[in-house]
């Protein structure tokens, strides 16, 4: 039987070798230094920090009880919010189909289209919805159009990327079988590629709709329609009880969205 000394070069068991320990401590010290650097140089009024719990408590105190007098308007705008999310998701899904097709290595016609597809995906995903919204509010003016286009621009990258990856992972044999029978490119897509990526397609579309519902609740803050507009209005006029109602309405909407998308996922997939 080998002794512990022969096996590990020491008499007692330890989890890490000295070198591993050194690396681990090095990383920990590095993290600590980053935190210290951030804490010491950040532009913060520390008096506000110490007063924060009291201020936040005061704010919630003012929000209670929620004021439902404008509930009818809130529900109407909430409906607009749902519509923005749904329309934007629908358009984004349609737009992302060709993008996913050219961004997948096994279906893209040539290298130039592959890079074009990837460029579209990266640009779309790297810019946040709110930043897209700022741009489209400047272009189209405040309103739902800016919101729909902003969410659409953001979603194309997300849906296209996941769908493109699904296309890259398909089983090649159905494609080859159809090509061997002399089927046209269009028929190959419809009968060999689409059926294979269909489950991913629906899963991604439902997931993105759920995300878009959340995103569309804030579009109004930069003027792009939806519940955010009246939220901003209520905050600007210090109408805290109404803010509380709006926030509750948003929670309910988001939870409902999750329930609906969970239901759809179960039914379709």
């Amino acid at each position, binding site marked *: 039987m080998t002794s512990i000394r022969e096996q590990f070069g020491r008499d007692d068991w330890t989890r890490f070798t000295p070198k591993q320990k050194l690396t681990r401590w090095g990383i920990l010290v590095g993290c600590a230094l980053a935190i210290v650097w951030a804490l010491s140089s950040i532009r913060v*009024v520390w008096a506000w920090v110490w007063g924060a719990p009291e201020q936040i408590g005061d704010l919630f105190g003012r929000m209670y009880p929620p004021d439902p007098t404008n509930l009818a308007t809130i529900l109407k705008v909430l409906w607009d919010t749902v519509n923005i999310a749904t329309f934007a998701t629908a358009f984004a899904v349609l737009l992302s189909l060709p993008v996913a097709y050219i961004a997948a290595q096994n279906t893209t016609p040539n290298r130039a289209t592959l890079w074009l597809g990837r460029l579209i995906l990266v640009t779309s995903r*790297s810019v946040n919805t709110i930043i897209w919204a700022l741009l489209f509010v400047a272009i189209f003016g405040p*309103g739902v*159009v800016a919101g729909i286009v902003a969410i659409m621009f953001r979603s194309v990258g997300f849906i296209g990327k996941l769908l493109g990856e699904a296309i890259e992972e398909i089983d090649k044999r159905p494609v080859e079988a159809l090509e061997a029978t002399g089927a046209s490119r269009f028929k190959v897509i419809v009968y060999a590629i689409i059926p294979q990526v269909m489950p991913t397609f629906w899963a991604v579309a439902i997931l993105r709709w759920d995300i878009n519902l959340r995103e569309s609740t804030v579009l109004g803050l930069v003027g792009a329609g939806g519940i955010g507009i009246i939220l901003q209005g209520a905050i600007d006029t210090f109408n805290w009880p109404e803010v509380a109602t709006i926030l509750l309405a948003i929670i309910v909407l988001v939870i409902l969205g999750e329930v609906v998308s969970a239901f759809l996922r179960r039914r379709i997939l």
Partner: protein
Amino acid sequence: MSTPRDTWSKPPFIANPVLRWTVYLGVIAYFGWVGLTMPIDWNRVAAGIERAGRIFGGAFPPSFERSGLLIDGFLESLKIAILATAGGVVLSIPIAFMAARNIVPLPVFYLGRAIIIVARSFHPVIVAIVFVKAVGFGPFAGVLTLIIYSIGFVAKMLAERIEEIDFGQVEALRAAGAPYLSTLFYAIFPQIMPRQIGLTIYQLDSNLRASAVVGIVGAGGIGATLANAFGRYDYDFALAITIVIVAVILLSEAVSGIIRKRIQ
């Protein structure tokens, strides 16, 4: 007996024809009706093409003249992301334990889940507005916002990982008479640590992105600089900021991808 056919056709998406047409008509009715009743000012939309031309004309070439402002904004975003990740991860560990069904009693589990659901329900921008009103403009509101944002994600994923742990090790330590803390440190933490580190790196990346957005409502960082540039019609500076944001996000995505690959 069904009649034999000469040609094969694709089976329909939904087998039941009544249900199928109800769904199709319902979808068409929804899009048609909502599309027509949506409050859209088409004149303004039509004017958008011309305005887009003016904006893009004004944005090119991007102006890096005020790069000092740009760098300051970014450093502030980075600091916000670091502090929020540290705070969020530290807070999310106890919350994740509370929300793991296999280690806590049911009432504690519900409390933990409730905290996670509330933290996840609100978009960071909404949380940011509330904090800006409560603690004033600036990066502190951004840090608080992103702490909540981090808890919503990290605690949720970590709780799921804790629910999947191998309970044999916990039982072994308990059988040896180990106290609660020892069980935690020697049986549970080693099992969840790799996931925790991966989540932390992912969250740092995610917080860096989000910190660009919360700034738009006054919570500090590069977003504040961007919103100001937009507000003053400095489209060339706004484009420069956007380009740098995209570059930084791609860079941080690449770096965090490399680190996560090395850990696994």
